[in-house]
């Protein structure tokens, strides 16, 4: 699939009274047509700036931004406005016009695009029907719940049939149940309408629920990216591991490790469980071959994108050399394992 969005070595810094702040640093990224890309990071990681570079609400200090065939960094403001009409955006605080009804909010981008009546009313009705709020057409935003407001936001963002939808912390102000509804709606937007979506969030649960790919941002850079399953199964950076740990509780936290060590004097090793069958049997055989005693002390196996995912922590007892040999043999067969070394600053 071709890339709908491409960022090439993009940096963005701001002059503030306290000095220059770099929000995005030398960042390159491609978003394929039709995918849902999740961008996760803590506040201040540069996610919001990143998403605003994609619809040119922010101009990069250096680097180039492409959306479709347009190089945004080379277009004048007037052309950028036309490009923005092709990109939908939804916000954490919904940002609905309080002076307009639900229908008036959805009609606004259509008016901008010059869509005339009665076509405009028909489109508004169709969009509100799609998000399940047709009966609220004449209500004002303050009469709606948070989830309803965001659904209006989504209808408004989709009004001009954009190819790309940007969701900036779109579920962060919602309760868990409403979050699930809104995420399911975004997934429908992607699957049924073929809209490419970039989801900016600090909640790994949102990524887990809908993203195809995830990019982990830290200090203005993408420190890790890949298919969601791969990053969840084998996070290679501390930042990614921390986010994964917020939704998968199959790896012991620092507190848990302290408790485990008190109860289990042997060496603690955590294994990522692969999808293939017979994994624990493989481990048992390797331990038996080297005369290593073993006991599962922590872990779990769950499901992600309809694939198994999990980790198991073993206590291994026996001669150090024997344990090392067993672990080396497993590593050689491609087993992903981490020894929970004491004093290691394990972050939850």
């Amino acid at each position, binding site marked *: 699939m071709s890339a709908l969005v491409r960022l090439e070595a993009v940096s963005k810094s701001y002059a503030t009274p306290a000095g220059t702040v770099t929000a995005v640093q030398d960042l390159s990224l491609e978003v394929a047509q039709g995918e849902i890309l999740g961008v996760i990071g803590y506040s201040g990681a540069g996610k919001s700036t990143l998403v605003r570079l994609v619809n040119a609400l922010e101009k990069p200090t250096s680097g180039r931004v492409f959306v479709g065939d347009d190089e945004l960094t080379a277009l004048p403001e007037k052309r950028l406005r036309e490009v*923005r009409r092709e990109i939908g955006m939804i916000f954490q605080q919904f*940002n609905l016009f*309080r*002076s307009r009804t639900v229908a008036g909010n959805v009609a*606004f981008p259509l008016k901008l695009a010059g869509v005339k009546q009665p076509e405009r009313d028909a489109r508004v009705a169709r969009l509100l029907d799609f998000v399940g709020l047709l009966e609220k057409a004449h209500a004002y935003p303050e009469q709606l719940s948070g989830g309803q407001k965001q659904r209006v936001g989504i209808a408004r963002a989709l009004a*001009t049939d954009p190819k790309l939808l940007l969701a900036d912390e779109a579920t962060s102000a919602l309760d868990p149940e409403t979050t699930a509804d809104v995420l399911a709606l975004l997934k429908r937007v992607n699957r049924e309408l073929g809209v490419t979506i970039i989801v900016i969030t600090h909640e790994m649960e949102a990524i887990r629920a809908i993203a195809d790919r995830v990019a982990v941002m830290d200090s203005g850079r993408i420190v890790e990216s890949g298919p969601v399953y791969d990053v969840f199964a084998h996070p290679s950076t501390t930042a990614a591991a921390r986010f994964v740990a917020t939704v998968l509780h199959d790896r012991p936290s620092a507190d848990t490790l302290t408790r485990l060590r008190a109860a289990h004097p042997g060496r603690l090793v955590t294994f990522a469980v692969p999808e293939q069958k017979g994994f624990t049997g493989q481990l048992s055989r390797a331990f038996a071959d080297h005369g290593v005693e073993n006991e599962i002390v922590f872990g779990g196996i769950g499901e992600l994108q309809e694939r198994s995912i999990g980790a198991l922590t073993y206590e291994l007892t026996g001669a150090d050399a024997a344990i090392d040999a067993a672990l080396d043999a497993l590593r050689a067969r491609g087993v992903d394992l981490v020894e929970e070394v004491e004093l290691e600053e394990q972050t939850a």
Partner: protein
Amino acid sequence: MNDFIGSIDVYLSAIWQTLFMALASLVVSGILGLAIGVLLYATRPGHLLENRVAYTVINVVVNIIRPIPFVIFLIAIEPLTIRVIGTYIGVYAATFAIAIGASFAVARIVEQNLVGVDPGVIEAARAMGAGPLRIIATVLIPEGLGPLTLGYTFLFVGLIDMSAQAGVIGGGGLGEYAITWGSQRYNWTIVYIAVATIIVIVQLGQFVGNRLARRALRR
């Protein structure tokens, strides 16, 4: 009281003059002040039409003119009033002076109310590809209409006050009536009738303004 009955036609035309001065200057300064206020808001750093030079110039002009006591402003602007209206006395001259003077106060009221508009909705409109002028006309002002209406109501009360001061330069209205028929003749009945009338006008203005603001805010 007999003096009052004798001057009843003067009293009635004074009411009319006061209403005319307040309402006509409300319209003129409302529009002029809205334009200056929107410019002040939009040219601020980080806003839609960010322009440091324009903002500084407008800001300084507003800051210089606004604090001038109105009685002095009336006199200071007389050459301009004569050029535009042809005279510096009378209701039209007073209305002109009031409208100009009030515009700068309105500009601040408008600016301060617009600052309270959620920047998120402005950003949403920008993200939809709306240009700055479009955003000002179709997002910013409608979103700020509730507080703006309250601001304009507050302004109306101020304009009644200014119209009374304009009586000093022969502007007519209830202010002049209270002075020439009232205090200068030691007729306190007439002074208090003028005062009571002004209170009623102010109350009515406040009432109408509150109603309109409530409608805009839908509360």
